[in-house]
């Protein structure tokens, strides 16, 4: 989880990722941020996020992201 927060903070340093729950809905993360994030997740966690997972439910908070990464790792 710390690794994920590190990645997130590098992409958007001004955001408090432990508190934010509407990263997509409030347009805090842009689509370019999202693809940067996915690329980093692939590098760091070895998990390739398929495009159908790029939905607000998975990206609205750091927790949701972490849950998605773990689920994709398992499947």
């Amino acid at each position, binding site marked *: 989880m710390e690794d994920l927060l590190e990645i997130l903070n590098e992409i958007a340093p001004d955001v408090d990722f432990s508190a934010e729950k509407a990263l997509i809905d409030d347009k805090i993360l842009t689509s370019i941020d999202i*693809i940067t994030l*996915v*690329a980093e997740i692939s590098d760091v966690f070895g998990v390739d996020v398929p495009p159908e997972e*790029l939905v607000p439910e998975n990206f609205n908070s750091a927790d949701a992201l972490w849950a998605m990464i773990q689920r994709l790792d398992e499947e």
Partner: protein
Amino acid sequence: MSFATAGFVAFFAALFLLYYAIPKKHQWKLLLAGSLVFYWFAGWRCLVFIGVTALSTWFAARKIETLAASQTEALKAEEARRKEAGDPLTKEERKARKAAAKKVRWRWALGCMLLNFGILAVMKYTGFLLSIVGVSFRGFAAVMGISFYTFQSMGYLIDVYWGKVPAERNFARFALFVTFFPQLIQGPISRYGDLAKSLYAEHGWNNRTIGRGALRVIWGFAKKLIIADRLAIPLKILTQKPDLYTGWNVALVIVLYAAELYADFTGGIDITIGCANMLGIDVAENFNRPFFSKNTAEYWRRWHITMGTWFRDYVFYPLSTAKGMLRLHKACSAKFGGFGKKITVYLTTLLLWFVTGVWHGAAWNFIVWGLLNGIVILVSQELEPLYARFHGRFPRLKPSKAYGIFEIVRTFLLMSLIRVFDVYRDVPLTFRQIGTIVTGGTAVRFGELGLSSADWIIAGIGIAALYAASFLNVREPARDRLVRRPFLAWAGATALIVLIIVFGIYGIGYDSTAFIYNQF
């Protein structure tokens, strides 16, 4: 058929009356019949094309869904078998089987996409591609709305492939989704999951819904016939002989085109969505006060919204999450560190905007237009740390109203400047023309641009009205408020219709029915 014709009004009036007269459960069938009749006016050949797309997509989507179900069953059975045999499936084995199954489904999706994008490519781009290798070919006759209905269908196919939406088993119902007539001319590009909610439902007569829709249709016609078609006259003169109109004339083109395209495109969309609303059907919005955007990225979230989201979800995201792209990212960041991480982002973004440009038209100017948008977005992205530092120094600037206005004007001018590649149609010429704004050119003679002073005033009032309307609509669309007071609604509608009749341009010598996006 295009909107601003008596033919369309007659067609829609007839359809509308029948729609509410027949038993509600047959309403969607009437819409299908109506859509086919509408499309038939574009030529029976066009019906063949749209038919092929509808049939192939319906079939492929059903196949993919059936496969997914049977593959899941097969995997479950194997898991049970192996567990019983005391040799349960490992995580790797399960992943491998799932991947193989997905590959089979992918082949169906890919086949369908190659067929339909292939048809689109051949019909739209043969002339252009041949011209690159020096062969002159006028190109095939346009198939109305092919860019829109192909994208709408392929979006559905991909959604089924991703398991986001259930396949439509009934071909007639699916055919309605593909051919839904209000959208055939210039979108919006709907998602099956959204449109299906209201498209097939039973719709009872509702004064408010129909009133709102009707007001929107009338407003759309007003924008089209009073403002857009009026401004098209000087625009045509200014751009047909560009050498005669340089310098400030080019600046005039930039501003006039912004107003004309906005009035024309949003007017057409108003008619589309208004008609759909009158039939009780909800269609996604395509514009959200785009000229109030503070930066390019925001502009593209507010202008032609359904196209932007389509490209984001079906091109940008799949491209950037493709295994090849991820591996390239890893290699680049290993080799070039921090800068390397950005390479695939730039590549994907520029590819996205290249494709967006190509979608708009089979000509170099559209490709240049697309790439310019992409470059501006990437440059703004890169300059962000610089902006942040600047604003850190002057913290009171950013939240100030003046700065907000500056950002809006800056974005408007930048987008309008890039957009002008649409209108001169030749890349070197466009650059030259823009250059003359700085170096100077011919004088602007308002009196010699095909409009009388009265016309210019009417256009000006029209634009002011658009501006005022966008403020009135911020919290709630004005028409929603109007329908709550029927007398005002009727008065407003009548007044608008009178204005359209009196001030509408029914041009002789100018095809007032040719919406700019009609060629798509």
